[in-house]
């Protein structure tokens, strides 16, 4: 099985301030990687490097075995950015229009075909928002909006979902439902990279944990993470991971 993501010796600085130092990391296809670290630890920067949004000062990135510079299958990646619940607050865009965007890389300038409409409908049905198709995004709750973004990624046939703190501003019940959906998608083979402040959520769900604070302090399964002192070293103090039981 090829790796979905391979990052080798990546360093990146904002001016003089280093954000990432010599980070190497692989994410196998079908893996659920939880990316944790304190505020300003470089999590979003690492995700941006991984997705080609930021070019690293040093090091290399491969997506699905292809160097990122020549990777052309952008539709294989679904990205839900930080504060995505705030998108479209003043834009009269409907859920269906948002999900249709997932098909745009497939059709270029052409019209959406029957198969594209079918993919959009299937994606909305998969995340249970079919009844919201005609609703404007700015009339939905945070949890419903996030499901619309996931549907957009599914409509694009994404194999990798990259989510940057997707549940900020989402109520607890919707958050649980959202993470339940991620679990299901992961069990269906979709690779997931999740940045999340709540370490308990990540260690409960992810198959691998990457703990970052400019440098990578730990990369392994949740058990080895609990046994290591990565949390203490990355966060600078002793902490205790609280599990979530529902």
């Amino acid at each position, binding site marked *: 099985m090829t790796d979905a993501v391979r990052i080798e010796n990546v360093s990146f600085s904002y001016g003089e301030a280093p954000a990432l130092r010599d980070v190497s990391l692989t994410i196998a296809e079908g893996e659920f990687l939880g990316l944790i670290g304190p505020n300003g630890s470089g999590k979003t920067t690492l995700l941006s490097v991984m*997705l*080609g*949004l930021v070019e690293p000062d040093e090091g290399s990135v491969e997506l699905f075995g292809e160097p990122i510079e020549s990777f*052309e299958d*952008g*539709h294989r*990646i679904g*990205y*839900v*950015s930080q504060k*995505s619940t705030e*998108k*479209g607050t*003043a*834009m*009269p*865009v*409907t859920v*269906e*229009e*948002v999900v249709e*965007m997932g098909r*745009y*890389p497939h*059709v*270029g*300038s052409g019209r959406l075909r029957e198969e594209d409409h079918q993919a959009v409908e299937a994606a909305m049905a998969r995340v249970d928002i079919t009844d919201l198709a*005609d609703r*404007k995004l700015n009339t939905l709750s945070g949890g419903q909006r996030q499901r619309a973004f996931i549907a*957009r990624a599914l409509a*694009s046939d994404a194999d990798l979902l*990259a989510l940057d703190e997707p549940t900020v501003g989402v109520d607890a019940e919707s958050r649980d439902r959202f993470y339940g959906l991620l679990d299901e998608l992961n069990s269906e083979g979709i690779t997931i990279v999740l940045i999340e402040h709540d370490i308990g959520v990540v260690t409960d769900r992810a198959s691998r944990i990457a703990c970052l604070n400019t440098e990578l302090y730990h990369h392994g399964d949740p058990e080895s993470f609990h046994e290591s002192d990565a949390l203490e070293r990355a966060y600078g103090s002793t902490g205790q991971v609280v599990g979530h039981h529902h």
Partner: protein
Amino acid sequence: MAVRRTARRGLVRVGVGVTALLAVVSGLYLLATFAEAYGPGTIGGLGATLATTLVDTGHLLGRLVGTDLLRFRFVWNSLATGVLIGIVAPLVGTYLVHREMALIGETLAHTAFAGVAFGLFFAASTGWSTPILLPALIAGILGAFAVQWLTEHTDTYGDVPIAIMLTGSFAVGTIVISIGGGFSGLNIESFLFGNVGFVTPSGAWLMGALSAVVVAVIAARHKQLLFITFDEQAARVAQLDVGLHNTLLVVLTSFVVVGAMQVLGIILVAALLVVPVAAATQIAADFRESMYLGVLFGELSVLLGLSVAFPLNAPPGGTIVVVAIGIYALSVAAATGDFRALSTH
């Protein structure tokens, strides 16, 4: 509810159909007059016949509603230009407004003003006459590239490059005009506020050509522009060429601004990029409908504004914008279901 939505969609479709008809007539008139002026032999003759037929028919229809103005070619030039502005300004403006770039139109209008000033200075210095909108178009496109470059290569807030270009170009324009001694014979007010008799045949033809380009590009790149407008980061991840489309958008804006400044004037040209879109956003059921409604409101603003401006010989920029803002106020009231909202917006 469903019946209401169907009726509303039907109404919007009728409005779009009427607007398309007006656009076709305007386009035909511009093609006919161009052929009349420059077409060889038969083509020139056909152009003249078609232009005369359109003007005569318009004159007859105009008399039915109590106006004699449609017998004048200069009125047709203004109307055809206005009809096209009413379509392309809200089309481009829809992306600008939702990208929080509402003031870029104002900036590029001021850049175009600097181009006009340089054009006049060049003409006065060399005696070589040049169509006044050509230097405006060149300056507008250069201004669009400059704003895009500043936005991408400087660490600053999004509206700072816009503010720098806006004030900087106007400053250069005023200096050039002062050096040129005000360019006798030039009515600066017409540039600033628009003028019903200001649209020359060549200005109207330019608007026709620019409008064709704008509509064609938007038809071809709407999906990419929409995705980038809604979620630029996700569009980058999906490997849409964000830089190219951002540049395309500002260049299209410069096209609209240069074409529209003849009727609306430099000061008010940005209003038609923004106000009809803001009105449409209040009540549109989805993004597609917001584009249709934006065009309808833009068209309504231009036609009603010109209808008032012609008999009063008032600057059409002012009348068009006042009508557009009236429509916006009604939209706000309709969206909130409360006409008292008019006093708070």
